[in-house]
């Protein structure tokens, strides 16, 4: 199956390992992965800041890079949910909504893929708001993580980490307070590594932990699944 690799802007610039793992996992699952390097931002950044025109420009450009009928798969519950909800109107591409998928959703629900390998580790899982409520898919990331032999997963309460796109910068003190609360919850699980399906959450938690001097490793769910699979060899 041919699959377009969708690389969210935050993953591209700040968490390239998440995009890399996404491509490799899709390949392992038997997909022929196509990547168009002209991708920039899906448009959600502008949209959430109230700039519909900015969102339209970005969305039209992004949609033009994903010709049908192939599925579009990317490591972000948030961006994918945004594309599903708004690309019909913003990009004039109503068909895209039906073939754009978040990575774990695609692997678990579409392909019925099972994690390979083994990973003796303990992680906290942060369900991103848009993964859980906008996409919505609460099940897939946890189902895949729980199917990894050796991996202990502590799902965190479904509560915003305080990223919120432009909110992260515009309301920085509040964003930081929310992240600090999330870090307390993570610490309470005993895990020193947190995984999620959205780079925005990872960046918020990583930078806040760094500021507060809290040791924390952040990983995208895709990185963890790839780590397990590669450990199998």
């Amino acid at each position, binding site marked *: 199956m041919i699959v*377009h690799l969708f*690389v969210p802007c935050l*993953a*591209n*610039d*700040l968490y*390239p390992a998440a*995009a*890399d793992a996404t*491509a490799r996992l899709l390949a392992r699952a038997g997909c*022929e*992965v*196509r*990547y*168009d*390097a*002209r991708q*920039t*931002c899906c*448009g959600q*950044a*502008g949209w*959430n*800041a*109230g*700039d*519909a*025109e*900015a*969102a339209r*420009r*970005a969305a*039209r*450009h*992004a949609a033009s890079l994903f010709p049908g009928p192939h599925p579009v798969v990317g490591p972000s519950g948030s961006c994918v949910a945004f594309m599903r909800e708004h690309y019909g109107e913003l990009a004039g591409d109503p068909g895209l909504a039906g073939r754009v998928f978040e990575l774990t959703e695609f692997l678990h629900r579409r392909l019925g893929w099972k994690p390979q390998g083994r990973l003796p580790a303990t992680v906290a899982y942060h369900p991103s*708001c*848009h993964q859980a*409520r*906008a996409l919505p898919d609460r099940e897939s990331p946890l189902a895949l993580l729980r199917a990894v032999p050796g991996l202990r997963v502590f799902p965190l309460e479904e509560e*915003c980490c*305080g990223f*919120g*796109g*432009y*909110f992260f910068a*515009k*309301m*920085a*003190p*509040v*964003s*930081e*307070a*929310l992240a600090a609360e999330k870090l307390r919850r993570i610490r309470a699980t005993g895990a020193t590594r947190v995984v999620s399906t959205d780079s925005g959450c990872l*960046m918020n938690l*990583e*930078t*806040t932990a*760094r*500021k507060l001097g809290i040791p924390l490793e952040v990983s995208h769910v895709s990185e963890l699944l790839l780590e397990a699979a590669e450990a199998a060899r």
Partner: protein
Amino acid sequence: MSARSFLANLRRRLGDPTLSATLSRSLAGTRAKRAHAVEAIEGYEALRDAASAARDLPAARREELVDAFAKAARAGGFRITHAATAAEACAAVGAILAARGVTRVVKGKSMISEEIGLNEALARGGVEATETDLGEWIVQLRGEAPSHITAPALHLNRDQVRETFAPLGYAGTNDPATLAGFAREKLRAEFLSAGAGICGANLALADAGRILLVENEGNGGLVTSCPPVLVILAGIDRIVATLDQALLAHRLLTANATGQAVNAYTHLLSGDGAQERHIVLVDNGRRALLASPFAPAAACIRCGACMVACPVYARTGGHGYGAIYPGPIGIAIARHLLRPGGDDPLPYLCTLCGRCDEVCPVKIPLSRLVVARRGETGSGKGIHERLAFALHARLCERPALYHLAGRIGRALVRLLSSCGGARLLARLRVKVPPARSFRDACGDLFRDSSRTRGNGGGDA
């Protein structure tokens, strides 16, 4: 409010450990009670749909309801005054009180009276107003605004309540029942001596011309029966067509506001009887709201569930918003009902997590409305922010430039980090990016394998 003072206020709230502890405790309790109450309602989703359909009416239909209600209420003995603005509404209440020589009033809980600044207006006219809802009375004694629309003193713990009562002669413990007993004692004298009662309206019934008032403390019953004159303030958005619709909204209201299957006292007030009863029907931006893209927000039944569910509200409390209506619904209606001056950063006090959309009993698309508020002029984005977003949008269409900018940005941050700026970056929560982006590093991935890279990189 300027962005600077808005953030300064937020920092003050966030830095208050007592407030944090109080919010955590009381919101956890309210969330659990609400969830339990909602689960217990059979066919809850269908009720939400029905209530949403009944509340989300076109502006023309609303006008019909206003006329029908005014006519029926008048026929039932109410005296009706229409007020277009907050000032007109305050003046109307003032005139009613002046005509009867009233100088002391008791008030039931009413958010619209907070919205129009009634207590301050009455004070300027020499009328002393005493709040009788326990939470409202507490915040009034402290000179504060309510921090939640149904639980005004949600931001306070029992020790703070005891301290608030101490100047009035309270010498007891922080036991809630004892504190409430003291308040009851003090307020009883007010009920008996007041020249008029003032309250709000949860719903107004167009068919029956009656007002539905929901409360739990019994103060509403006293306010609406003890004094010889009663003035009810009702926003025109409170009007529903029928008793059935009112009861449906009432059911959703109690479950979502306080987590109750049924509240303690529900009054269905008519205009007949010994009391002189007035209704002031207030517009104050509601007609403009109804005619705007934000009209869905007029369906709100003021349960406050969106605030209780909101992760931001849970950290800042209601006072962090600097607006009488806090939380997601507050952001959605503020510009119409409260008309903040200048550049207002309020719409950005939201992470767009979507929890409010999930809990709103009448399905107001709150986070969509918050985003729409951000799109309005004067919504707190400075010129540099507008330019940055405009530039970003243009770069998005030009991949080569976009990624060149990314490369430069990454290099600069990495340079700063390695030249003594690491602590500054940490303080600003700037992530030090890896040397290469996925795009710049993935060449091998797509060359070495049999995977295709598509037509990528064309113009880069």
